[in-house]
Protein backbone atom coordinates (compact mmCIF):
# COMPACT_ATOMS: atom_id res chain seq x y z
CA UNK A 1 0.00 0.00 0.00
CA UNK A 2 0.96 3.66 0.18
CA UNK A 3 0.89 6.03 3.13
CA UNK A 4 -0.39 9.40 2.01
CA UNK A 5 -0.54 12.53 4.14
CA UNK A 6 -2.29 15.78 3.33
CA UNK A 7 -1.96 19.22 4.84
CA UNK A 8 -4.06 20.91 6.03
CA UNK A 9 -6.66 18.35 7.11
CA UNK A 10 -9.30 21.07 7.09
CA UNK A 11 -9.59 24.80 6.68
CA UNK A 12 -12.15 27.56 6.65
CA UNK A 13 -11.36 30.28 4.15
CA UNK A 14 -12.89 33.53 3.00
CA UNK A 15 -14.14 33.93 -0.53
CA UNK A 16 -11.64 35.44 -2.91
CA UNK A 17 -8.62 33.92 -1.17
CA UNK A 18 -6.50 30.92 -2.20
CA UNK A 19 -5.51 27.76 -0.37
CA UNK A 20 -2.65 25.39 -1.19
CA UNK A 21 -3.03 21.75 -0.20
CA UNK A 22 0.02 19.55 0.13
CA UNK A 23 0.23 15.82 -0.54
CA UNK A 24 3.18 13.71 0.60
CA UNK A 25 3.61 10.00 -0.16
CA UNK A 26 5.90 7.67 1.75
CA UNK A 27 7.43 6.17 -1.40
CA UNK A 28 7.88 6.97 -5.06
CA UNK A 29 4.73 6.48 -7.07
CA UNK A 30 3.99 6.33 -10.75
CA UNK A 31 1.02 8.64 -10.83
CA UNK A 32 -0.59 11.24 -8.60
CA UNK A 33 -4.08 12.65 -8.91
CA UNK A 34 -6.31 15.22 -7.29
CA UNK A 35 -9.99 14.54 -6.71
CA UNK A 36 -12.88 16.54 -5.34
CA UNK A 37 -15.68 15.00 -3.33
CA UNK A 38 -18.70 17.06 -2.40
CA UNK A 39 -20.66 15.98 0.69
CA UNK A 40 -22.52 12.74 0.10
CA UNK A 41 -21.27 12.50 -3.47
CA UNK A 42 -18.89 10.37 -5.46
CA UNK A 43 -15.35 11.30 -6.45
CA UNK A 44 -14.60 13.66 -9.32
CA UNK A 45 -11.16 13.73 -10.88
CA UNK A 46 -9.74 17.24 -11.11
CA UNK A 47 -6.39 16.51 -12.72
CA UNK A 48 -3.40 14.23 -13.05
CA UNK A 49 -0.27 15.73 -11.52
CA UNK A 50 2.68 15.16 -13.85
CA UNK A 51 6.20 15.30 -12.55
CA UNK A 52 8.18 18.09 -14.14
CA UNK A 53 5.43 19.19 -16.50
CA UNK A 54 2.00 20.77 -16.51
CA UNK A 55 -0.85 18.83 -14.98
CA UNK A 56 -3.50 17.22 -17.17
CA UNK A 57 -6.91 18.65 -16.32
CA UNK A 58 -10.31 17.04 -16.70
CA UNK A 59 -13.19 18.70 -18.44
CA UNK A 60 -14.58 21.50 -16.31
CA UNK A 61 -11.35 22.16 -14.41
CA UNK A 62 -8.75 24.73 -15.47
CA UNK A 63 -5.21 25.53 -14.47
CA UNK A 64 -5.97 29.11 -13.45
CA UNK A 65 -8.45 27.91 -10.86
CA UNK A 66 -6.61 24.77 -9.71
CA UNK A 67 -2.86 25.15 -10.29
CA UNK A 68 -0.98 21.96 -9.50
CA UNK A 69 2.68 21.26 -8.93
CA UNK A 70 4.57 18.00 -8.71
CA UNK A 71 8.27 18.67 -8.22
CA UNK A 72 9.21 15.04 -7.52
CA UNK A 73 7.82 11.50 -7.31
CA UNK A 74 6.51 11.80 -3.74
CA UNK A 75 5.05 15.30 -3.43
CA UNK A 76 2.35 17.41 -5.04
CA UNK A 77 0.35 20.53 -4.28
CA UNK A 78 -3.08 21.68 -5.36
CA UNK A 79 -4.07 25.33 -5.05
CA UNK A 80 -7.70 26.35 -5.01
CA UNK A 81 -7.65 29.95 -6.28
CA UNK A 82 -10.06 32.83 -5.87
CA UNK A 83 -12.35 30.65 -3.80
CA UNK A 84 -16.12 30.86 -3.69
CA UNK A 85 -18.60 28.94 -1.50
CA UNK A 86 -19.08 26.50 -4.39
CA UNK A 87 -15.50 25.33 -3.83
CA UNK A 88 -16.46 23.98 -0.39
CA UNK A 89 -15.63 20.32 -0.68
CA UNK A 90 -13.23 17.57 0.29
CA UNK A 91 -10.06 17.49 -1.80
CA UNK A 92 -8.31 14.17 -2.05
CA UNK A 93 -4.84 13.28 -3.21
CA UNK A 94 -4.55 9.86 -4.83
CA UNK A 95 -1.63 7.77 -6.08
CA UNK A 96 -1.04 4.70 -8.16
CA UNK A 97 1.75 2.29 -7.32
CA UNK A 98 2.77 -0.08 -10.01
CA UNK A 99 2.21 -3.62 -8.81
CA UNK A 100 3.07 -6.93 -10.42
CA UNK A 101 -0.13 -6.94 -12.46
CA UNK A 102 -2.02 -3.73 -12.20
CA UNK A 103 -1.42 -0.48 -10.40
CA UNK A 104 -3.50 -0.17 -7.28
CA UNK A 105 -4.88 3.25 -6.48
CA UNK A 106 -4.80 4.72 -2.98
CA UNK A 107 -6.27 7.87 -1.47
CA UNK A 108 -5.09 10.31 1.13
CA UNK A 109 -7.22 11.33 4.13
CA UNK A 110 -8.55 14.40 2.37
CA UNK A 111 -8.64 18.12 3.06
CA UNK A 112 -12.04 19.46 4.08
CA UNK A 113 -12.42 22.98 2.76
CA UNK A 114 -15.17 25.37 3.76
CA UNK A 115 -15.43 28.72 1.99
CA UNK A 116 -17.45 31.44 3.69
Amino acid at each position, binding site marked *: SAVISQKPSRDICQRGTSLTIQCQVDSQVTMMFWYRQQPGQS*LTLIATANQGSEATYESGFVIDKFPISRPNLTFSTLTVSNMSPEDSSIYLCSVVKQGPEVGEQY*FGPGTRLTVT
Partner: protein
Amino acid sequence: QQQVKQSPQSLIVQKGGISIINCAYENTAFDYFPWYQQFPGKGPALLIAIRPDVSEKKEGRFTISFNKSAKQFSLHIMDSQPGDSATYFCAARKTPGGYQKVTFGTGTKLQVIP
Protein backbone atom coordinates in the same frame (compact mmCIF):
# COMPACT_ATOMS: atom_id res chain seq x y z
CA GLN B 1 -20.50 4.20 -21.89
CA GLN B 2 -18.07 5.20 -19.16
CA GLN B 3 -20.66 5.05 -16.38
CA VAL B 4 -20.74 2.62 -13.53
CA LYS B 5 -24.21 2.35 -12.01
CA GLN B 6 -24.36 1.48 -8.33
CA SER B 7 -27.31 0.46 -6.18
CA PRO B 8 -28.78 0.84 -3.67
CA GLN B 9 -27.99 4.40 -2.66
CA SER B 10 -28.40 3.46 1.00
CA LEU B 11 -28.74 0.22 2.88
CA ILE B 12 -29.67 -0.72 6.44
CA VAL B 13 -28.71 -4.19 7.61
CA GLN B 14 -29.01 -5.87 10.97
CA LYS B 15 -25.87 -7.02 12.71
CA GLY B 16 -24.96 -10.50 11.49
CA GLY B 17 -26.82 -10.10 8.23
CA ILE B 18 -25.52 -10.01 4.68
CA SER B 19 -25.01 -6.65 2.96
CA ILE B 20 -25.19 -6.71 -0.83
CA ILE B 21 -24.22 -3.82 -3.09
CA ASN B 22 -24.58 -4.06 -6.84
CA CYS B 23 -22.82 -2.37 -9.74
CA ALA B 24 -23.26 -2.51 -13.49
CA TYR B 25 -21.07 -1.21 -16.28
CA GLU B 26 -21.32 -0.72 -20.02
CA ASN B 27 -17.75 -0.46 -21.25
CA THR B 28 -16.54 -3.99 -22.05
CA ALA B 29 -12.97 -2.70 -22.10
CA PHE B 30 -13.02 -2.39 -18.30
CA ASP B 31 -10.90 -5.16 -16.83
CA TYR B 32 -10.21 -4.17 -13.24
CA PHE B 33 -12.94 -3.66 -10.65
CA PRO B 34 -11.98 -2.36 -7.19
CA TRP B 35 -14.21 -1.58 -4.24
CA TYR B 36 -13.47 1.24 -1.83
CA GLN B 37 -14.68 1.75 1.74
CA GLN B 38 -14.95 5.27 3.11
CA PHE B 39 -15.62 6.20 6.70
CA PRO B 40 -16.85 9.72 7.55
CA GLY B 41 -14.01 12.21 7.53
CA LYS B 42 -11.59 9.77 5.90
CA GLY B 43 -10.36 9.11 2.40
CA PRO B 44 -11.55 6.04 0.48
CA ALA B 45 -9.62 2.86 1.29
CA LEU B 46 -9.08 0.07 -1.21
CA LEU B 47 -11.06 -2.89 0.12
CA ILE B 48 -10.94 -5.63 -2.50
CA ALA B 49 -10.60 -5.86 -6.27
CA ILE B 50 -11.28 -8.39 -9.01
CA ARG B 51 -10.30 -9.05 -12.60
CA PRO B 52 -12.92 -10.50 -14.99
CA ASP B 53 -11.10 -13.80 -15.44
CA VAL B 54 -12.56 -15.02 -12.14
CA SER B 55 -16.20 -15.08 -11.04
CA GLU B 56 -15.61 -14.61 -7.35
CA LYS B 57 -12.99 -13.31 -4.96
CA LYS B 58 -13.18 -13.59 -1.21
CA GLU B 59 -11.20 -11.78 1.46
CA GLY B 60 -12.41 -12.46 4.95
CA ARG B 61 -16.03 -11.40 5.22
CA PHE B 62 -15.93 -9.50 1.92
CA THR B 63 -16.70 -11.23 -1.39
CA ILE B 64 -16.89 -9.83 -4.90
CA SER B 65 -19.11 -11.71 -7.34
CA PHE B 66 -18.53 -10.98 -11.00
CA ASN B 67 -20.83 -11.75 -13.95
CA LYS B 68 -19.00 -10.87 -17.13
CA SER B 69 -21.84 -11.70 -19.52
CA ALA B 70 -24.25 -9.48 -17.59
CA LYS B 71 -21.60 -6.80 -17.03
CA GLN B 72 -22.41 -6.75 -13.35
CA PHE B 73 -20.47 -7.17 -10.14
CA SER B 74 -21.44 -7.06 -6.52
CA LEU B 75 -19.96 -6.79 -3.05
CA HIS B 76 -21.23 -9.11 -0.34
CA ILE B 77 -20.41 -8.41 3.28
CA MET B 78 -21.09 -11.50 5.36
CA ASP B 79 -21.86 -11.30 9.08
CA SER B 80 -22.14 -7.51 8.81
CA GLN B 81 -20.92 -5.59 11.86
CA PRO B 82 -21.62 -2.04 13.09
CA GLY B 83 -17.97 -1.27 12.29
CA ASP B 84 -18.77 -1.92 8.62
CA SER B 85 -21.01 1.14 8.58
CA ALA B 86 -19.46 3.29 5.87
CA THR B 87 -19.93 4.40 2.29
CA TYR B 88 -18.87 1.89 -0.34
CA PHE B 89 -17.85 2.81 -3.88
CA CYS B 90 -17.46 0.39 -6.74
CA ALA B 91 -15.15 1.35 -9.56
CA ALA B 92 -13.91 0.15 -12.92
CA ARG B 93 -11.05 0.85 -15.26
CA LYS B 94 -9.08 -0.39 -18.20
CA THR B 95 -5.53 -1.53 -17.56
CA PRO B 96 -3.96 -2.43 -20.91
CA GLY B 97 -1.44 0.07 -22.15
CA GLY B 98 -0.69 1.46 -18.72
CA TYR B 99 -2.87 3.26 -16.22
CA GLN B 100 -6.30 4.35 -17.35
CA LYS B 101 -8.67 6.60 -15.45
CA VAL B 102 -10.92 4.92 -12.96
CA THR B 103 -14.68 5.39 -13.13
CA PHE B 104 -16.45 5.41 -9.77
CA GLY B 105 -19.97 4.43 -8.89
CA THR B 106 -22.20 6.84 -7.03
CA GLY B 107 -21.69 5.19 -3.64
CA THR B 108 -23.79 3.19 -1.17
CA LYS B 109 -24.15 4.32 2.41
CA LEU B 110 -24.33 1.22 4.59
CA GLN B 111 -25.63 1.29 8.13
CA VAL B 112 -25.38 -1.84 10.23
CA ILE B 113 -27.64 -1.69 13.25
CA PRO B 114 -27.11 -3.75 16.41
